């Protein structure tokens, strides 16, 4: 269990809805993660954007490998359908052109164990929330009148919605700097 989730901080689970419980208990980690990524810098050039995608791939590839082994049980329990982000990331990186980093090893993050449906759903809560943040940036770019930039399938979403609507799953899913969308538009239109 994460050091940031301590029993002394816990809100009694039965007094609030599970989703609200999740949101309250992970809010601090969510904010820390957002603060740790300089989105404006990452979207500032093709090179930094490509680096961002590689870093996402370093998380999603092992995540999806681990999830695959439990997805059948998860599906039986919840009717959840997960759409691969690895495929989107690989297509985006291909669209952006070859890069020497493609064959370089990256640190494999420590993932939770998906040995029960609740653990898998907890991890998916984070993954789907991350996806929503990218879609919010996409809407900002659309408002600016831009066409879909090259290499943006992952960040801007696959266009496929989960069976269960995840809108509003994170109270602050939209707290990513939306002005980054405009910068993204600028750098990627020139690819």
């Amino acid at each position, binding site marked *: 269990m*994460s050091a940031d989730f301590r029993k002394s901080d816990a809100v009694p689970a039965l007094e609030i809805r*599970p989703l609200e419980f999740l949101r309250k208990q992970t809010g601090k*980690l*969510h904010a820390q993660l957002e603060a740790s990524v300089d989105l404006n810098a990452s979207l500032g050039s093709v090179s930094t954007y490509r680096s961002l995608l590689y870093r996402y791939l370093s998380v999603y590839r092992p995540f999806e490998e681990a999830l695959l082994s439990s997805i059948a049980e998860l599906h039986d329990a919840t009717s959840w359908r997960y759409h691969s982000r690895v495929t989107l990331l690989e297509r985006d990186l291909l669209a952006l052109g070859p890069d020497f980093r493609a064959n*370089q090893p990256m640190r494999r993050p420590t993932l*939770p164990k998906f040995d029960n*449906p609740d653990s898998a759903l907890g991890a998916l809560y984070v993954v789907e929330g991350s996806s929503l943040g990218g879609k919010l940036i996409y809407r900002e770019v659309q408002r600016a009148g831009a066409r879909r930039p090259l290499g943006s399938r992952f960040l801007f979403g696959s266009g496929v919605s989960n069976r269960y609507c995840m809108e509003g799953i994170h109270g602050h899913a939209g707290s990513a700097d939306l002005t980054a969308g405009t910068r993204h538009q600028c750098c990627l239109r020139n690819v």
Partner: protein
Amino acid sequence: MLDQQISQPELATSAACAMFEAFREGLQENEEAIRLR
């Protein structure tokens, strides 16, 4: 919705915390690794 699907919120929360940490590891620590190449 998750409210109907999650039966043990503590388990889900523990996994969510670990997943946030995994994203931090992958995004932040690999950024340094890439910069050094």
